[in-house]
């Protein structure tokens, strides 16, 4: 009986703390929104949210936070405009209760202020070639991640390792232009996407790794835009077709030496000729 009481009390305690914490808008914002959004700190990956509660009503905001993709698809003019402004980079849907969404909105509302223009992205200013090289090694898995996380290539591809890169998640060719240094850093630190959250929950990236990877992705995006990127996917196809042709040629070359005719071919031919 005592045991049962203790158990139920523990459960009640847990629930209360969970509820309390989930009601804490500041904490929620920090965990789920801050990688891409600031409040009054200027635009990051997504817009600066300072004063957003004044621009849009709470119902719309709730809908947008819960699933922006659906809202854009439904043709809501405001949502479509935002999507366009941010290169159709969709905000991941919020997984949580209605209460949590309103807690976040309340938190943003309480901060007040107004949106600032994009802050200067100085994160990667000090990046060297060495950082890029190390980032590439980390990306491709040639250099293992310190905390034994899976290397990026498992799910992502970039143009200079295309063909062998993963196709489970987005290609990161243009990631720098969409996210900027701050955005990449924010995403790698907080890992807001479910698959990444799970993958790196127990194997987080360290700061040096994040910096190297961000430097590498910047380099990738720049070469991509400058047209230096080799279109490896196409090369790979060409290589495949060429290799196949070569292989068939080789096979037919070898097959030519095969014994096709019977040893008695001449005899049969003569006999058939006589018959006619």
């Amino acid at each position, binding site marked *: 009986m005592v045991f049962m009481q203790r158990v139920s009390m523990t459960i009640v305690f847990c629930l209360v703390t969970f509820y309390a914490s989930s009601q804490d808008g500041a904490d929620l914002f920090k965990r789920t929104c801050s990688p891409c959004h600031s409040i009054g700190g200027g635009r990051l990956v997504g817009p600066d949210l300072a004063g957003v509660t004044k621009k849009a009503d709470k119902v719309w905001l709730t809908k947008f936070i819960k699933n922006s993709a659906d809202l854009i698809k439904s043709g809501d003019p405001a949502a479509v405009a935002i999507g366009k402004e941010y290169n159709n980079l969709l905000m991941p849907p919020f997984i949580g209760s209605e209460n949590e969404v309103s807690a976040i909105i309340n938190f943003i509302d309480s901060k007040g202020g107004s949106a600032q223009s994009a802050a200067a992205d100085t994160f990667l200013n000090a990046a060297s070639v060495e950082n890029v090289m190390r980032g590439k090694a980390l990306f491709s898995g040639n250099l293992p991640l310190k905390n034994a996380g899976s290397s990026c290539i498992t799910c992502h591809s970039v143009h200079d390792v295309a063909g062998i890169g993963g196709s489970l998640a987005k290609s990161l060719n243009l990631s720098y232009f969409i996210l900027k240094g701050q955005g990449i850093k924010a995403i790698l630190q907080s890992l807001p996407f479910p698959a990444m959250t799970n993958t790196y929950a127990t194997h987080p990236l360290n700061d040096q790794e994040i910096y190297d990877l961000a430097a590498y992705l910047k380099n990738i995006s720049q070469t991509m835009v400058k047209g230096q990127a080799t279109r490896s996917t196409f090369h790979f196809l060409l290589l495949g077709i060429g290799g196949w042709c070569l292989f068939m040629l080789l*096979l037919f070359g*070898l*097959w030519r*030496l*095969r*014994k*096709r*005719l*019977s*040893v*008695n*071919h001449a*005899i*049969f031919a*003569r*006999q058939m000729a006589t018959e006619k």
Partner: protein
Amino acid sequence: MDVRSQIAMVFHLDKCIGCHTCSIACKNIWTDRKGAEYMWWNNVETKPGTGYPNKWEDQSVYKGGWTKSDNELRLKGMDRKSTMANIFHNPHMPVMDDYYEPWTYDYANLFEAPAGDDQPTARPISLVTGEPIDIKTGPNWDDDLGGSPDYARQDVNMHDLTPAEKEAMFQLERMTMFYLPRICNHCLNAACVAACPSGAIYKRGEDGIVLINQNKCRSWRMCVSACPYKKSYYNWNNGKSEKCLLCYPRLETGQAPACMHTCVGRIRYLGVLLYDADRIKEIASCNEKDLVAKQMEIYLDPFDEQVRQAARKNGVAESTLESARKSPVWKFVKEWGIALLLHPEYRTLPNLFYVPPLLPAIADTSTGSYETTCASLWGGIESSRVPMQYMANLFTAGDTEKIREVLKKLMAVRIHRRGVTVGDLHEDECKQAFAETGLTADVADAIFRLTSLPKFGERFVIPAAHREEATELLENTADIKGNTGFGTLNTPQRI
């Protein structure tokens, strides 16, 4: 010394009448199945002739057997590299026409054809496609010198013959022929075993029978092209290769293989030979002129106590050693030295020996009458209708001396027996024959007895198979004892 036991065979060609009973017996037991119709694990060829599959002896086409290059023994048709390169097409494989397209006849038409002006016929129907075909060739198309200009004249063994000798073989009243029955040689240095990429072919430890594991065979067909005797066949229906298994289920129950049991001329002998497995590589890779003599060295004397000890240590059963001492093959091959091997130059160290035939002498027609008698019986060997070189190409890798020696021994036995039964020969002639061949009257009588009057148990000395011991190697028989019976191993289940 690594002494092992081998079931070996002797075919006495003088006694073969070419009736093909052996082939039919084998076909009825083993190859009367879909996909195996064209296979003749046992076949009888006419020599001179091209045989089955056609020109099988022409290794410039089929590339079977071993060859010696850079002092190393290599498979003629393939090494590791070329096997990899050719693994999907196996370039030297016989095509279907090299064997023949098996067929049956549309017998139903004889009964069911609508009434018409002509007799109904039974058209040949291919057993492969099921369509009517025109028969081009069959398994014994050149039997009894049939179609000689096309077939016998293309016999591969006529190299090194003078044009006159070649011509004489096909002249009316001068030509002759003999039969050559062939089964798998169960070689000591089998090329098929070496060539199989799946490792499906193995030589049985207890009696040296070469078998294809039907579960492991992956239809590469390398055995088909590697076997110089073309005695491994591909079953096109089930996709596995098959070959003569020396009727091992019969041997294990003490019966002679079907081809031997049914042999009308009683030409076949079967028995155990002991051999030294340590010497296989050395002998298979020796110089070609030494091959015949060297292979005879590999077989060990079952009467030698040292050999017996080594054999026992190797796990050869006492009953096998005993039957090795009674083996007719030992007598023909080693004691009397009158049995030779078919194409020893393929270097597979075959275990099927042949007593070569004593063929009629060339007739002399200059007097107007058909005269085959010579000054002496010895003359019959030198003026044999089949050139000595031809026989040598078949049985001694081209060494005419060796074949002459064997034929002289056979003739000495005839001279001796004629002296005994007819008594019209001068004693000196018999003495000279013995002196030249090293035979004695006793040995000649023994050869005569085993050749002409052998009993069943003398022709086939089959060692006990001891399958019970083999079973004990694989499973603990005590576990099963007392547990067999209905529903004991598999208890009934209630649902």
